[in-house]
C-alpha cells in the first residue's frame, strides 16, 4: 500500500497554475526524487503534500489518511524538512527534540535523543542555542527533528543545502537507512548526481506539469535518441534547455 498518494493535484495562484494534474504514488522503501528547473513547481508540490499549502484541486493521502479530511493524523505520519531550517531561537538543540517529541506524542523521546544526536553529529551541541550553530548544524538539527517520530513519509526540500562533504555523506546514508526501514521518501533537489545516486524513481516537473516519471533507467531509455549520454543531458532535453548540452 502506498504511503504517499497524490491524485490530480493542482495549485493555482490567481490564474497562474503552479502545479497541475499531478498524480503519483510513493510506496514504503521508495525514494522519489523531484527534479525540475526553477519555478517548475517542486516546492509547491512538496509543501502541498506537507499540508502547508492548500491545493486548489486534487487529493493527497498520507499513510491512508486524507490530508484535507483528517489533517492531524495525516501530518502525524509525515515529516517535512525545508531547505531553510526554521528553528526556535530560544530552544537548545535537545529542547527542540523534546518539543517535537511532545507535538508528535513520542513518549520515549529521552531514549531516542542520544542516538539521533549521534547520527547527526550534534551530541556536543545538545545544550547550544541555534545562534551558536553553523548553517550546516542547523540543517542537521532540522533533520533530526524530522526523524524523531520515525515518520512513514519523509519529505525533504533540498536536503543537502548547507552541509559539508561529511554531512552530505551522512545525510545520504540517513535517507537510505530510513527508506530501508520502510519509510516513503520524497526529496526535491537540483543536484542530479544526488538523485541519480539515492533515488529509486524520478519525477521531472516542468511548468507545473509532469514531463517524466520512472526510474532513471526508464527515463533514459525513453530518450534513447539522445544516445544515453547522461541524466543531465536527458533532464535538459526534457525541460527544453539542451542548447548547451553538447558543449
Amino acid at each position, binding site marked *: 500500500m502506498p504511503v504517499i498518494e497524490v491524485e490530480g493535484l493542482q495549485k493555482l495562484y490567481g490564474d497562474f497554475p503552479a502545479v497541475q494534474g499531478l498524480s503519483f504514488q510513493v510506496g514504503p522503501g521508495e525514494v522519489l526524487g523531484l527534479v525540475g528547473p526553477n519555478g517548475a513547481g517542486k516546492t509547491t508540490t512538496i509543501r502541498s503534500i506537507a499540508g502547508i499549502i492548500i491545493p486548489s484541486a486534487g487529493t493527497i493521502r498520507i499513510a491512508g489518511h486524507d490530508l484535507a479530511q483528517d489533517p492531524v493524523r495525516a501530518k502525524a505520519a509525515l515529516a517535512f524538512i525545508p531547505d531553510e531550517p526554521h528553528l526556535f531561537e530560544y530552544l*537548545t538543540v535537545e529542547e527542540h527534540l523534546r518539543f517535537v*517529541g511532545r507535538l508528535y506524542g513520542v513518549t520515549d523521546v529521552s531514549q531516542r535523543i542520544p542516538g539521533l544526536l549521534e547520527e547527526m553529529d550534534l551530541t556536543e551541541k545538545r545544550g547550544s542555542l541555534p545562534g551558536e550553530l553553523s548553517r550546516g548544524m542547523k540543517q542537521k538539527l532540522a533533520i533530526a527533528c524530522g526523524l524523531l517520530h520515525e515518520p512513514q513519509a519523509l519529505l525533504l526540500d533540498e536536503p543537502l543545502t548547507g552541509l559539508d562533504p561529511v554531512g552530505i555523506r551522512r545525510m545520504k546514508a540517513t535517507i537510505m537507512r530510513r527508506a530501508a526501514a520502510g519509510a516513503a521518501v520524497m526529496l526535491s533537489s537540483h543536484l542530479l548526481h544526488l538523485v541519480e545516486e539515492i533515488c529509486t524513481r524520478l519525477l521531472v516537473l516542468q511548468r507545473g506539469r509532469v514531463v517524466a516519471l520512472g526510474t532513471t533507467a526508464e527515463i533514459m531509455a525513453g530518450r534513447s535518441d539522445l544516445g544515453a549520454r547522461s541524466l543531465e543531458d536527458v533532464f535538459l532535453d526534457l525541460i527544453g534547455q539542451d542548447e548547451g548540452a553538447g558543449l
Partner: protein
Amino acid sequence: MIRTFGYLAWRSAHNRIARQVRHLRSPRYVAALLLGLAYLWFAVIAQRPTPATADLADPRWLELVGALALLGAVAWGWIFGVERRVLAFSPAEVTFLFPGPVSRRGLIQFKLLRSQLLILFNALIWTLILSRERFGVSPWLRVVSIWVLLTTLSFHRLGASFVRTSLAEHGRLGLRHRVVSLAVLGTVLIALTWSIGEALPRLADADARTPFGFLSALGEAAAQPLPTALTYPFRLMIRPLTAPSVAAWLQALWPALVLLVLHYIWVVRSDTAFEEAAAAVSLQRAQARTERRAGTTPRAGARVTAPLFRLSPRGWPAGAILWKNLVAVTRTQRLRNVVIAMAAGAVIVTALSFEPEGTLAELAGWFAVTWAAALTVIGPQWVRNDLRGDLLKLDMLRSYPLRGGSIVIAEVSASALVLTVIQLSLLVIGYLAFLGNQSMDPPLHTRTLVLVAAFVFLPGINFLGMIIQNGAALLYPAWVRLGSGRPAGVEALGQNMLMMVVFVAMLAVTLLLPVAIGGGAFLLLRGVVNGWAAIPAAILVLGIMAFEAAVLVDWLGGVFERTDPAAAGIG
C-alpha cells in the same frame, strides 16, 4: 551617493506600499481599510474640545507637559540605551552598503533618509490626531512643526547611540573622543537628578485629586531656575506646535530649526578614521543587539538558563508551543530584569509602607498600580511571544499535526499568561505599598477585594486582548508587523497610539456583553443575597468571556488552517 540612497529608499517604500495595496483585492482587507478610514474620520472630523479639556489645552500646560515628556524620553534613552532600531540595518543593506564604497557619513545619511519615511508617516498621524482647535493654526503648519520635532528627536537618538556604542567599544579612547557630549550629558543628568529631588516634596504635597492640583505643583517645580534651563530646549521643540497664530508659529519655528540643524551637525560632523572604525563596529554590534532584543538571535555563547519546567512527552500536544513560548520569554534579558526589579520593589515598598512617613512607598505603590492598569491596554502590544512572532515560521506550524484552534489557544495563552503575571505582580506591589496605611480610602478590605477580583478577571481579559492582537496578525499578516519587534521610539508613537486606540475599542466591544450581563445579574441578585451576588455575577462574566473566547479561537483556528503562506506573503 545621496541620490542612490534616495532611489533605494523611494523604490523600497513604493514597492512595499504597492504590495500592501495589492492585498485590497481581498474583501477582508477592503473592510479593514474602510473601518480604518471611518475611524480616522471620526477621530479627526468629529473631535471637538470639550469644556473640561479646554483649560487643560492651554498652550502653557501643553508646552510644559510636552517638554517634560520629551525630557523624560531623552533621559531614559541615555540611561537605559537607545541603540534599539536606531542603527539597525537590514541584512540586504549590510550586504550591499557595508562592503560598498560608502563612507561612514554616507551610511549615516542613508539612515537619516530612511528614518524620514517613518517620521513623515507619524507626522501625518499626529497631525490628524491633534485637533486644529488646540494645536497650531493650520494642519500644514502643524505637520511641519511635528516633522521638525520628530526629526530632531530621531537625530538625537542616533547621536546618543553613537556616544554610547563608542564608549562601549573603545572605553577610555572613546571617552576622550566624546568628552564634550559626555560633559553635557553628565551635567544634564546631575541637574535632572537634583531637580527631581527638589520637586518631589512639592509634588507629594500637591492635591492629586484634580489634574490642575498636580499640574500647578508641576508648573511651580518646573519654574525654578534649574528645571527651566533643563526643559528650555524641549520647550523650544514643542513651541511651534502650540503657537496660536502664523506670526507666533514663524517666531517659534526658527529656534526649533536651529536645534534640528545642530543635531544634524552633531550626528554627521565627524569622519575621522577612528570614527569610521567605531561606526562600523557599532553598527554591527547594534544590529546584533537589536536582533537579540527583538528576540531573533540570542547572544552566542550566552549561558542558557534552564526552563521553568521540563516538558513532559505526554499530554496536550499543543502544550509544546505554550512551553516553547514561555521558555523564550524567560530567556530574554529584559524579562529577567523586570522580574528582579519587581521582586526587589515588592520587598522595599512593603518595608517602607510601615514607616511613619510612607510617602515613598505610596508613590511606588501608585506607580505600580498605574502601570498594572496601563498594561491592560499597552501590554498586548508589548508582550508578543505568540503568533505574531511565530507566523514568520508559518510553514513549520502548518506542518505540525495540530488543529488550527489548538495552535491559536497555545500561542495566545503564552502571551496572556506572561502579561497577567506581570500585571498581578505589579498589583501585589501596589497592595503591599499601602499595607501599612490604615487611614487610606478605600480601606484595606476593599483593596483586598479589588486584588482578588484582578486575580479572577485579569487572565480572561488578557486572553481576550491577546486573541484580538493575534487575530489581527492572522487576518492581516501583510499589514501587521510580524516578529517580536515593533516600531519603537517617540517617532513611532503616533502609529502605536493609533493601533492602541483601535485595540481598546475592540476589547471594549468584546467585554461589553459579559460586563452588561454580569452587572445586570449582580443588580438583580443584590437585593436578595447582598454582596454575595458578586459570586454568581462573576461566574456569569467568566462564563460569557469563556464562550466568546471559544468562538473566536474556533474561528481564528479555521483562518489559520486556510491561510496560504505564499498568498499571505509569509512563511
